[in-house]
């Protein structure tokens, strides 16, 4: 099923990953290997199980069967907080916490009793195109700005893998283009391993090194974008 073979070991792997809720299977035996610095776009119609797959990888939900491996280690052997620090997640909505931009970005490191310096914080904000926003109240941000703060907040944890759940779908067209370009630039520059869920096939083609197509909770195929999307 997998094309684009690589010689390295997968950074992230799902084996027979399955979840059923009240008898209904929402993710059905999904096997995916994502290699270091690879962006795996996951595409499919609404209800295909894409977001449920991401929640399983971040262990926000528990698999009914199968497992996820991070650097070859079954993720159930990694304490949940350590796992989620290593596997960051950006959701469709930014879900910023009330307060300032700085408080939001410092949230992740603070959970490990680390304090992000003002200089490091400003570097992150510059990275997402929001220099000087440190003391801004999050209630006064636009949708695009809020999502960029959410990206900076996820990056502050220095994740090895980034899961993106429709990160641009709640934005208007202009903000969508800006955020997508920004994410692409950061992901490539940092060499982040990513799983990017989208319902937008064109975005999957633009962002994915490979594309996984899901339908009715099942993984139909994984291939290079053109091959996967035109099959």
């Amino acid at each position, binding site marked *: 099923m997998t094309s684009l073979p690589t010689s390295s070991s997968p950074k992230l792997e799902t084996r027979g990953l399955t979840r059923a809720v009240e008898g209904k299977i929402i993710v059905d035996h999904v096997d995916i290997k994502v290699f270091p610095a690879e962006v795996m776009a996951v595409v499919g119609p609404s209800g295909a199980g894409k977001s449920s797959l991401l929640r399983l990888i971040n262990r926000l*939900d*528990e698999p009914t069967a199968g497992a996820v491996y991070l650097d070859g280690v079954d993720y159930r052997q990694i304490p*949940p907080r350590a796992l989620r*620090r290593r596997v960051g997640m950006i*959701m469709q909505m930014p*879900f910023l916490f009330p307060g300032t931009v700085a408080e939001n970005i410092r949230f*992740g490191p603070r*959970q490990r009793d680390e304090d992000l310096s003002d200089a490091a914080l400003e570097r992150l904000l510059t990275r997402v195109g929001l220099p000087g926003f440190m003391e801004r109240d999050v209630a006064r941000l636009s949708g695009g700005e809020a999502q960029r703060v959410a990206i900076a907040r*996820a990056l502050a944890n220095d994740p090895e893998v980034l899961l993106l759940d429709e990160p641009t779908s709640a934005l208007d067209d202009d903000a969508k283009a800006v955020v997508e370009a920004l994410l692409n630039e950061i992901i490539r520059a940092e060499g982040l391993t990513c799983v990017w869920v989208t319902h937008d096939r064109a975005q999957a083609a633009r962002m994915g090194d490979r594309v996984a197509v899901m339908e009715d909770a099942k993984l139909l195929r994984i291939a290079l974008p053109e091959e996967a999307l035109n099959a």
Partner: protein
Amino acid sequence: MLNHFFTDPIHLAAAQALVAGLMAVGMMLVASWSGIHLEKEIVIALLRGLVQVVAVGAVLLFIFDGPTVLGFVILAGMMALAAKTAEKRARGLPGAFKVSLYGIALGGGLVIVLMTWAGVIDTRLSALIPLGSMIIANSMNATSLALDRFQGEVRSHVGHIETALALGAAPKTAVRPFAQAAVRASLIPRIDSLRSLGIVWIPGVMTGMLLGGSQPVHAALYQFVVMAMILTVSGLTSIISTLLIAAHIFTPAEQLVLSATD
């Protein structure tokens, strides 16, 4: 006027009950004349209320001479019933009965024991049971309010809570703002009661003591004591209950078990 005709306190109280009952029947007739027909409900409610309260009075008369330990047994039973009532408000929260029971027993129990030890509550059952039951009832209300509010806050902030978890936060950190909001919500009615004490209303204990012939300043100070106990028990119970329930809404793998749509 009635005390001119009745010298025996029981006869006087029965006559007062009759007058109050007749007044309610008068209201019922006015309502009936206005086309609001609640005759059956009002008559049954009046008779039922009278029988229940006299029965409780008779039981208290019997047990008031009993040992202090009997009072604590009765209060423990009241706590279990209070937890059962609070559980109904918290339907949908896992472990709600256990959490309510621990909250009421720890919060209410601590205040009752401390106040009894300090001599604020008399160990005679005639004081221990009514004051203890008042503390337990307020403890129950605080638990119900706190759990209901907590559930509502969590279900409407699932995205924020899961975002915090996804950033590596501990479950208790992820729900802390919502637990704090729940405790605050359960305390606001108690704080408002204290703030308006004596200005907007003169509560039951003081009214009872004044009717019983106590000196007004003494009655007022004791009423303050009762209100302060109620505020304390409300705060303690709601803090304990929300802390305990917060641990019940996550799996061992730190996943939120409540959904926004339930």
